[in-house]
């Protein structure tokens, strides 16, 4: 390593990854490379081993929303987003403390499951119709705006697709399994 040493680079990695510098959490690979040098993957492995005991995981999300590993090719890592996520699920009370309502959480389950089961894309009208089976119309509009604003959904022409945040934070396969009682 260079003069600054591994411990200093790990601290720098923590600053970059924990500190929310823009609306979207996480840091791009090229930003980490610029700050930590070409051996940034090695620094991140060391950093990961220190935060994992605290219940925090480092996830690397590629351009297309798929999860990558730190061993993935450099050209994929440089444009990927590195995000720290909680390793363990939250309880309803924790989510409520963070400002989520039960209805918002349930509405998001409906959206993600519906979009996930339709190959990652559905129309806004279909989603609204499904949500209206559970919630009043004003709430449905409100929920969809929030989910788009928070990054869980993205608007693409007349359709809604999974947003960057869903790819980073939600295990869609498990979500679909849990819906059927798994």
């Amino acid at each position: 390593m260079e003069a600054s040493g591994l411990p200093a680079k790990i601290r720098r990695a923590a600053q970059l990854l924990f500190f929310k510098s823009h609306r979207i959490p996480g840091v791009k690979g090229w930003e980490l490379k610029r700050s930590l040098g070409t051996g940034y993957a090695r620094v991140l492995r060391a950093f990961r081993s220190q935060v994992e005991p605290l219940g925090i995981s480092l996830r690397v999300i590629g351009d297309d929303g798929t999860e990558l590993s730190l061993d993935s090719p450099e050209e994929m890592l440089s444009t990927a987003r590195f995000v720290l996520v909680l390793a363990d699920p939250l309880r309803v009370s924790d989510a409520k403390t963070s400002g989520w309502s039960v209805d918002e959480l349930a509405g998001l389950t409906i959206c993600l499951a519906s979009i996930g089961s339709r190959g990652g894309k559905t129309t806004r009208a279909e989603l609204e119709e499904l949500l209206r089976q559970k919630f009043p119309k004003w709430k449905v509009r409100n929920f969809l705006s929030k989910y788009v604003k928070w990054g869980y959904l993205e608007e693409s022409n007349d359709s809604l697709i999974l947003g960057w945040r869903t790819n980073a934070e939600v295990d869609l396969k498990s979500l679909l399994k849990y819906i059927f009682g798994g």
Partner: protein
Amino acid sequence: MSETSEREVERELRDLVSELSSLIRSGEDILSIQLEPKMAKLKELIRRSLEFKHIELDMEAVYNFALLVYAQSKSLRDRSSVLYVDPFLIKLAILGSPTERLAEIFLRAWRPSAGRDVLSHEMMKKSYDYWNDLKTYSIELEESEPLRGETLESLGIRYDELISEGMMEMCEELRRRGGRLLYEELVGGGTLNERLRRAVLISFMLSYGYAHAEKEPLKKRFWVVAREQASKDQPKSTESLVTIVS
């Protein structure tokens, strides 16, 4: 090829292109669409296409076929993936689950991103410097005054005119124009001062009972309806209506 035959080929090609475009937009199950008969039809039309405009339509049809085939291929890939679950089954499962359970499902599959939203020493120093560098300035506070006659006058509106000839003229105009007009139509499209003057006259006309308002909230329309004589009744309730006269 005769002119009639050329026109027929063009019409059939246009029909085919339109059919393919509507299939793309329809949102129906893409794999249930039978493309072979339509392709055979296009093949036959291409054979009969001799004009440049036919070839343009041929190309458009081929492009739409390419989009449909791509969508079918993508749908096949999605359905063969481990994530594929029948949307209908998902819908049934969602409808059969209480919201509390749906919320718990999300929490089980959710690993929220971790981050800190706090000030660092460096940011605090920057904020301190920024605050110190701000120029001081003061705002001269003026007491707001109620709208007076002179203010209206500067807009070309005389108060005595409002409750006399101006308002009566407006009533007469409303009756002349059928007795029921949209507010915007009655305000008209003159200069800003003229529209403002008419808007004030309408509000006086409504307040003095020479006309009443009818609202269509769903269509966001507001009608002004003339009365034969000014109503002596006190209004049961009053409300404000915000309209923009720009």
